[in-house]
């Protein structure tokens, strides 16, 4: 633990150094969040286009032809363009929203403040990680403008479809290469970020901030960084191998004897399953990279509005560590039916089911925290409760997919789509919303509008259930995912349900405009925020809103206690701050 001043850099001068190429973790955190905002708007518009096409396949969407003259001639989405929209939706959401916002965004801004540091351990590397992420995003978006369109082999980019190049059809040209390049670049940024998070947590904690006194959100970001360090270190070489297969004639993922478009492919010796193993070795931990910061944020925020300590703080941290460890033992559950040895399916099924134990415990701890509380129903509190609800809904369907014997039927259907959207999409988004409403006053020194926030919550909460719960029913009826139209006889009776989901998705998407308006308006016109508007205990609330450049005005706080001191009898108010003498 370091007690001496950790950084010697003075506040920067000039607009560029202050707001653009800044080494200040707070500016970088906001830049990540702004990037995630642009990405989430893009990803959501893509999902609207997909949903419209699924419900009304011949619908002409005005203006779409301009974006893609080939993919949407006359505004009608072609099957291949549908798959491109789907691939880009998944990639943008998973990498540039669910990884970027809750981990890199909030983590960058608040981890150093919560441990009482002046900045991240390596501020320049921190700045580099953001700019590298931005480059990765721009590379990905640029694939919309290449001749045969963006990649279409899904966010999982299964080889050999993704590896053999143009012969495999549209979307397998430059678009797919740009996809792999973008993800490889993204991995670099994440590795740099993860190193910084780990070093900062271990080395820059202020006096008195023992590991046991760290806020739950800090714990979650730290554990997520450890997961990311291992996961992205595998995905990056996998992407490089994929790029080599595509452009350098190697055959890492391509076996001999493939005939595509009547042409015998000049490859031999590769394994398509190798890509799946490498991808899912990253891909499953990635689910936890998306959701663990949400766990931390909810565990951090819920006690503030319950006005009582989080139930079982040590159990909570133990569960986070257990989940992180188990996340590396379960990747094969994505591959039960992949052609991998069926013996290993049982082997991967058991840890997958075991991971439900810590997941159940954390849920019970949150619900138990609400018991006997004095709940203050602010917008962040509502999103916390919503998080618990949608996480339960999404987590439970995992039981069906974790068992090879039931996965036989449900694999590849909308049941899977429902599961992962609830558990890592919607739940993580609720964590992001809770974090935004909670920390906005600290970040911008202004309060968000509570009435608009509550409208946003109610419409979103009801909306997401209308969108994603019916997808379970589709899955049970055998509705296959990744279809751009339902021409199969047995799928036709399900089209009305798809139309319902589309209407609900448009409605829920429109409700996000309330959030966007509130966010932008409050940033400039919201009422001034006090230093600690929510009466919270952690260090970020001991400093001004927004904090000064070095976070604590040259006086690093000395921590006296843990973050969980709510409902304290005899205290002024009902809480004691971590740095209070």
């Amino acid at each position: 633990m370091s007690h001496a001043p950790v950084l010697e850099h003075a506040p920067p001068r000039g607009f560029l150094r202050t707001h653009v190429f800044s080494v200040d973790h707070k500016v970088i955190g906001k830049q990540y969040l702004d990037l995630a905002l642009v990405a989430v708007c893009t990803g959501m518009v893509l999902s609207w286009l997909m949903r419209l096409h699924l419900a009304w396949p011949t619908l002409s969407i005005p203006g779409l032809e301009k974006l893609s003259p080939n993919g949407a001639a006359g505004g009608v989405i072609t099957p291949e363009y549908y798959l491109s929209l789907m691939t880009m939706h998944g990639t943008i959401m998973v990498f540039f929203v669910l990884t970027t916002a809750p981990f890199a965004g909030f983590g960058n801004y608040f981890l150093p403040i919560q441990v009482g540091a002046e900045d991240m351990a390596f501020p320049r590397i921190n700045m580099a990680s953001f700019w590298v992420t931005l480059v990765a995003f721009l590379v990905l978006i640029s694939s919309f403008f290449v001749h045969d369109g963006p990649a279409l082999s899904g966010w999982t980019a299964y080889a050999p479809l993704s590896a053999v190049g143009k012969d495999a059809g549209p979307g397998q040209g430059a678009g797919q290469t740009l996809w792999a390049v973008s993800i490889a670049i993204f991995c670099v940024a994440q590795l740099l970020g993860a190193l910084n998070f780990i070093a900062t947590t271990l080395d820059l904690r202020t006096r008195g901030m023992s590991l046991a006194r760290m806020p739950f959100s800090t714990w979650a970001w730290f554990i997520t960084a450890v997961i990311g360090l291992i996961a992205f270190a595998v995905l990056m070489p996998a992407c490089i191998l994929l790029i080599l297969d595509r452009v350098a004639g190697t055959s890492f993922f391509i076996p001999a004897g493939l005939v595509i478009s009547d042409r015998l492919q000049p490859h031999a010796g590769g394994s398509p399953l190798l890509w799946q193993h490498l991808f899912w070795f990253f891909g499953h931990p990635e689910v936890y990279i998306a959701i663990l910061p949400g766990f931390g944020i909810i565990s951090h925020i819920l006690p503030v509005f319950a006005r009582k300590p989080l139930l079982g703080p040590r159990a909570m941290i133990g569960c986070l560590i257990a989940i992180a460890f188990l996340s590396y033992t379960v990747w094969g559950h994505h591959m039960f039916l992949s052609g991998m040895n069926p013996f290993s399916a049982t082997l991967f099924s058991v840890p997958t089911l075991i991971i439900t134990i810590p997941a159940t415990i954390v849920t019970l701890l949150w619900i138990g925290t609400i018991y006997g509380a004095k709940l203050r129903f602010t917008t962040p509190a509502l999103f916390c409760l919503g998080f618990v609800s949608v996480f339960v809904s999404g987590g439970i369907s995992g039981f069906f997919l974790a068992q090879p014997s039931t996965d036989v039927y449900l694999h590849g259907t909308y049941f899977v789509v429902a599961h992962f959207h609830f558990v890592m999409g919607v739940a993580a988004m609720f964590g992001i919303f809770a974090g935004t409403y909670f920390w906005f006053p600290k970040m911008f020194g202004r309060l968000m509008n509570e009435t608009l926030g509550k409208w946003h919550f109610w419409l979103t909460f009801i909306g997401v259930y209308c969108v994603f719960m019916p997808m379970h029913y589709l899955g049970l009826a055998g509705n296959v995912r990744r279809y751009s139209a339902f021409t199969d006889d047995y799928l036709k009776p399900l089209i009305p349900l798809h139309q319902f989901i589309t209407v609900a998705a448009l409605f829920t998407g429109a409700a996000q405009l309330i959030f966007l308006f509130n966010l932008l308006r409050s940033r400039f016109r919201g009422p001034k925020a006090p230093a600690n508007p929510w009466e919270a205990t952690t260090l970020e609330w001991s400093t001004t809103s927004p904090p000064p450049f070095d976070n604590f005005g040259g006086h690093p706080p000395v921590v006296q206690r843990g973050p969980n001191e709510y409902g304290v009898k005899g205290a002024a108010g009902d809480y004691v701050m971590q740095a209070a003498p």
Partner: protein
Amino acid sequence: MGKLFAVVLTIITVVSTAIFATRVWWLPTDISLHGPRIDHQLVETMVSCGVLFVVSQLSLAAFAWRYGDRRDGRPVKAFPGGATPMVVMAVVLVGAEILALTFVGAKLWAGIYQTPPDPNSLAIDVQAEQFAFYFRYPGPDGKPGATHPELMNEATENYFGLDPAHDTTARDDIVVPTLTIPVNRPILLTLRAKDVNHAFYVPELRIQQDFVPGLAIPLHFTAVQTGKFEIVCTQLCGLGHYNMRAYVEVMPQDRFDEWLKEKVAQQ
């Protein structure tokens, strides 16, 4: 606000559960020998997960109702017994559920995917390609001809790359676009992909398996009902993925024998 949250969440929970319970949308009727056990495992999982779902959501709703916006001046109170009983309960109950599911489920899975096929199975080769399935029966000699990727050609309909000019075993091979099988007879499919990943999925047969280029993957099942059912691809394989399908036609043994005879005569 707490009461409103409780009411909304209760409505969501009740409506969602009711739709599951009344099976408004449900699995199609099973036509396979192993299917009833899969359906049973699915229903077992559904019931235990349903209980967990309803109990968790309703306790969340109840606590939000009871402890929301309290102005009664009473202090907050801790959960009775603290976290330990909760942790123990979760480990024991969820652990027991996992053991039960794994014990039954692993046997069930092993019965389908890890057991060797019946030696009397009817062996059929399946070739998946962008965006169709083709099925090959070995013909009267009982031997399938060798496949040669360089001979695969769409225009000449040589989907398997057979070489009847030089390979006598290939001459009587029967290649059809519909999987025709007799009822109540074990079937052994060998799945091969010509180009990219595909998958074989027949919801009514409760069976699904990926095709992987470079691998020959065995898949066996027995259909116990006659009829015509769709085979769909569930592994993203390119632009025509949504349209990649074939049919499986299950017929009585005598009709199947006739069909096979007809096909042999056409060779």
